[in-house]
């Protein structure tokens, strides 16, 4: 690189000397040299600057999902050791975490024991039902379930419309009669074409969703008598 530049410069000087009438060959050369140095240095300076910057930007530490050259599978996130329990989900309260109101041992998703069967047969929530629980259930339902089951629970959500096997409507007799725990169980373990949602939806949210599904079912068969008297007049106004 340097050699080529030098020989190039030599050539121009030779040419200049041949030419007559150039009064200030040396000054021109000096200007030329300044210019070329400036042109060469300024990008180099920029490169230097950016070089400094990236070291602090990309520190040699693992941020979430940063690949690793150390582990054979290329992941810095390590798989959990079997039987690991997250600290915040200690399952100290089985009724709350798993809906096991019998106060028995913690329920394992992969076992088909009596505990699981009991859970699928549960007819009540493991915690009190409030407006907040239903609101939360509605929100989570619309996030995680509505893509297939649709917001009304008829089973013709966008994903089903795209060609996924249609889930049954919640408004068929079999599901209207199914115990509350059935929905929790399906969310936890999957059913038919539906995979398990245990990783995506927390246990308490699964119960809230189950409660909301029940609300959806009730909504289709509600009569005026189910509406609180205070609200009833509003509906009657609309009807007229």
């Amino acid at each position, binding site marked *: 690189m340097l050699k080529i530049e030098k020989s190039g410069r030599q050539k121009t000087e030779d040419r200049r000397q041949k030419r007559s009438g150039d009064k200030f060959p040396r000054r021109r050369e000096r200007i030329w040299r300044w210019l070329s140095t400036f042109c060469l240095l300024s990008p180099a300076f*920029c490169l230097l600057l950016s070089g400094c910057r990236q070291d602090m*930007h*990309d520190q040699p*530490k693992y941020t979430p999902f940063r690949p690793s050259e150390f582990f054979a599978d290329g992941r810095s996130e390590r798989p959990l050791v079997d039987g690991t329990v997250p600290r915040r989900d200690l399952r100290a309260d089985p009724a709350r975490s798993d809906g096991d109101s019998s106060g028995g041992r913690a329920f394992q998703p992969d076992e088909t024991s009596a505990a699981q069967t009991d859970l699928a047969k549960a007819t009540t929530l493991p915690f009190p039902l409030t407006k907040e629980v239903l609101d939360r259930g509605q929100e989570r339902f619309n996030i995680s379930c509505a*893509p297939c089951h649709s917001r009304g629970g008829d089973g013709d959500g*966008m994903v089903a419309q*795209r060609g996924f*096997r249609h889930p049954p409507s919640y408004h068929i007799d079999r599901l209207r009669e199914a115990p509350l725990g059935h929905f929790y169980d399906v969310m936890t373990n999957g059913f038919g074409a539906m995979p398990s949602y245990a990783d*995506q939806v927390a246990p308490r949210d699964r119960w809230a969703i189950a409660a909301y599904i029940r609300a959806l079912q009730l909504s289709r068969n509600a009569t005026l008598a189910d509406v609180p008297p205070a609200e009833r007049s509003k509906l009657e106004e609309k009807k007229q």
Partner: protein
Amino acid sequence: MPQIFHRSTNTIARVSIFGGLFFLAFLVWALYELQASSYNTRAFVARAQPVQFSHKHHAGDDGIDCRYCHTTVETSAFAGIPPVKTCMNCHSQLFADNAYLAIVRDSFKNDKAIHWTRVHDLPDFAYFNHSIHVNKGVGCSTCHGRVDEMPLTWQVASLQMEWCLECHRAPEKYVRPRDQVFNMDWQPPPDQVEQGKKLVEQYRIQSANVITSCSTCHR
């Protein structure tokens, strides 16, 4: 002794002293613009991915909520890149033998990580937490733009400190009601600043003094 310089060079000398200032100012301005341009920040540059995942298709056309995949955005610093199991929830049947998704199926069957290209890459010396922003009424689209209209994802913000501070100095200009955080269509109302001030109070967003202090983000 003859004069070395012609008289006209006097003018050139004067002009160059004066002009040098302008030239320096120009240089500073040009460098500033260059580092703030998308050439440096890579804003508005769509990144290629191993599988050309389209947010427009999933979030826009299919109307899937952000949180279906980014499950931890409300509870942790990291919004979460979904595991391929989440992809397979639907793609076990949809496009199940399409060559386009071969990488996804291979990853799922053989437990091989897909190396996605990171789009929003904050410098490691900046602390950022998704959950606090989402829970205090900062919407997805405030920072990420209309992701539901992006076939390939790009960033719409420079992600430079100046950009962060723009909101940390005056959050009332940007916050929205919590139930609108995941709404991609949300538009600020005409009286955003007044509404925003109420929300800032209601959500107990700390004063600009606190959230613009160095250790808020550099900890």
